[in-house]
């Protein structure tokens, strides 16, 4: 066993060396910080870290805080719609642009430019657009549609959809870029061959192209999931968690407690809870993708 291992390392030696930076970053930056933050979640740290031990107190306080519970529920709603809409829209845009469209460069830039904008002002714009007195509702009523209502940003029941709208606007472009990159990596021969065989276009997409795009699809879904869990800037810019706490999200809860509220203990407890949740959701996905037998799969 030992000898074989040494032989294996010798053969792949350069690969081991090449991965050293990644190993260093993972162990010292990521695992180190994770361990540190979990440790702090068991302390009473306020503005600065403290070395004491208070057991599960922070977690008890956490789940007794209505703002935290609301933010979890909100995140679930946002996650579902954002993931679905952003992914589908991004794919459709990529597929349509790939159809030898004139002005492709222009279209691509139009769908990607939101990604370049800092959310501080973009969020404010969406707030204005969806505000009943300033935005679309006011304009439509000005045109004579006096019963028209689009007050998502001030309506506690609809404010999450306002956030979803803004984040879809921001993120679809990237999904489009990823899927487009994947589409462009597909051999042109396939199109010629299937056309000669008389297979309708949509079937080609569903049965042949989509499976070939699997790596890009997985990448898109993972990236979208990451931005869902870390969603913060858009909420702060658009609604600041309001009205009331109707659009609170976990990342904002963590951030507020880390800085403004000077309550590191509570913030790291929340962060640990999120980490465990992500682990539980992602573990089966990661396992099936990367650890299966013969798994070089995406």
């Amino acid at each position, binding site marked *: 066993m030992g000898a074989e291992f040494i032989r294996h390392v010798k053969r792949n030696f350069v690969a081991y060396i090449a991965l050293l930076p990644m190993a260093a970053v993972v162990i010292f930056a990521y695992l180190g910080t994770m361990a540190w933050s979990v440790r702090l979640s068991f302390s009473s740290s*306020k503005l600065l870290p403290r070395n004491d031990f208070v057991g599960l107190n922070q977690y008890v306080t956490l789940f007794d805080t*209505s703002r935290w519970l609301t933010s979890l529920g909100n995140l679930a709603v946002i996650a579902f719609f954002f993931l679905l809409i952003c992914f589908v829209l991004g794919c459709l845009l990529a597929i349509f642009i790939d159809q030898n469209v004139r002005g492709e460069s222009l279209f691509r830039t139009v769908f990607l430019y939101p990604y370049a904008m800092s959310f501080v002002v973009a969020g404010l714009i969406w707030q204005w657009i969806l505000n*009943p*007195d300033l935005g679309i509702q006011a304009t439509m009523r000005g045109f004579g549609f006096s019963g028209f209502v689009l007050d998502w940003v*001030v309506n506690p029941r609809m404010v999450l959809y306002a956030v979803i709208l803004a984040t879809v606007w921001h993120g679809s472009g990237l999904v489009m870029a990823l899927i487009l990159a994947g589409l462009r990596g597909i051999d042109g021969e396939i199109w010629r061959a299937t056309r000669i065989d008389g297979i309708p276009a949509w079937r080609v997409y569903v049965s042949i192209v989509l499976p070939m795009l699997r790596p890009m699809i997985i990448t898109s879904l993972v990236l979208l999931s990451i931005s869902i869990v870390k969603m913060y800037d858009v909420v702060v810019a658009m609604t600041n968690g*309001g009205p*009331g*706490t109707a659009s609170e999200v976990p990342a904002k809860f963590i951030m507020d407690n880390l800085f403004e*509220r*000077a309550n590191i203990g509570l913030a790291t407890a929340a962060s640990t809870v999120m980490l465990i949740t992500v682990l539980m959701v992602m573990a089966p996905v990661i396992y099936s993708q990367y650890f299966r037998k013969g798994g070089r799969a995406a």
Partner: protein
Amino acid sequence: MTAMKQMVAVSAIALAAATGIARAEEPLNAEVIHWWTSGGESAAIAVFADAFNAAGGKWVDNAVAGGSAARSAAINRIIGGDPSTAALFNTSRQYHEIIGEGLLNDIDAVASKNDWDKVLPEPIANAVKVDGKYYAAPVNIHMPLWIWYSTAALNKAGIDKPPETMEQFLADLDKLKAAGVIPLALGGQRWQENSLFSAVLTNVGGAGLWKSVYGDKDEAAIRSPEFRKVIETFVSLKPYVDAASPGRNWNDATALLIKDEAGFQVMGDWAKGEFKQASKEIGKDYGCIPGLRPDSPYVLGGDVFVFPKTDNAEQVKAQHLLVEIMTDPAVQVKFNNLKGSIPIRSDVDVSSLDACAQLGMKIMSDPARQVPDASQMMEEYVYGSVQDIVTELWNTPMTVDQAVDRFEKALKG
């Protein structure tokens, strides 16, 4: 021989004088982290910078917008071993923990030299004094709970003079509503909703209730009928705020007053900046009401500078010079005029301040009416929980009983 000696002597003196002058002219560098980035705030801090530079210092500006970002930048610099010379904070408990960790220099020497014990109002002195030593230099006093009104809007509703009691205020709100004007301009953001609640608490409950609920966190006070009345009055204001209020920035709410589309706004004295920008005049276009009872408490909040710990003698000298400059009476007046706040010391010439500021100074000089603001009386995280309750009270159908229970739980920590 004598001539040579003379020449050498003269040269020696000249050399000594030259190097002496050169040494004296080396400026004291002071890097200051703050969040005053708008046009008006910039002009205000320029007063400090210019005065400091004129006194032989060199002001190195490090502005970061957003109080929270600036404070965490300052704290990170301290932790990273590369502290700034001074950093801006608010009167609160924010910096107490840093003091506890020994990360700030105290400025007792300058404070006692300038008689701060006598010159500063008590709540301010209490905010900047920890364990009997002065650690922070207060530079202004902001009152966050002024009630602003638009003269034209009030005229339209047939209100001939501004309200002097809460009952008159509520009646005026009805009149405004009947006249088709937005009675109360509010930006539906957590801190603004909290300001509104604080205004109701101080005006309905008075200084006594303010201090016993927020300060002593006295259970009897929280469960008292007076506090219940405060909560009920707060909730009763909901119909007087327009539907587009959630998320609105405070200056957009002030804009409603400027456009005469709204009657009243509860906002701090920095609102004057907005009115001035729109060329509105006190008395003619808008007015300020300090409170709705004859003895209404004047809530004192403000900005302070703290001085990170350093043993570098030059830096300490720079820190002390900063304190002297910032609390100098003439500089105080000039700075506060531009900032919209009032000076920290009562021994200044107030004739150049505007009418609202002068009114504020008059009220503030009466010790009986001075009360500390909420964040001075409780820890950050407690205050955060209180704010959460208030915003939910405003935005959801919470009952008074539920609110009282949650207040008690949050204030008890």
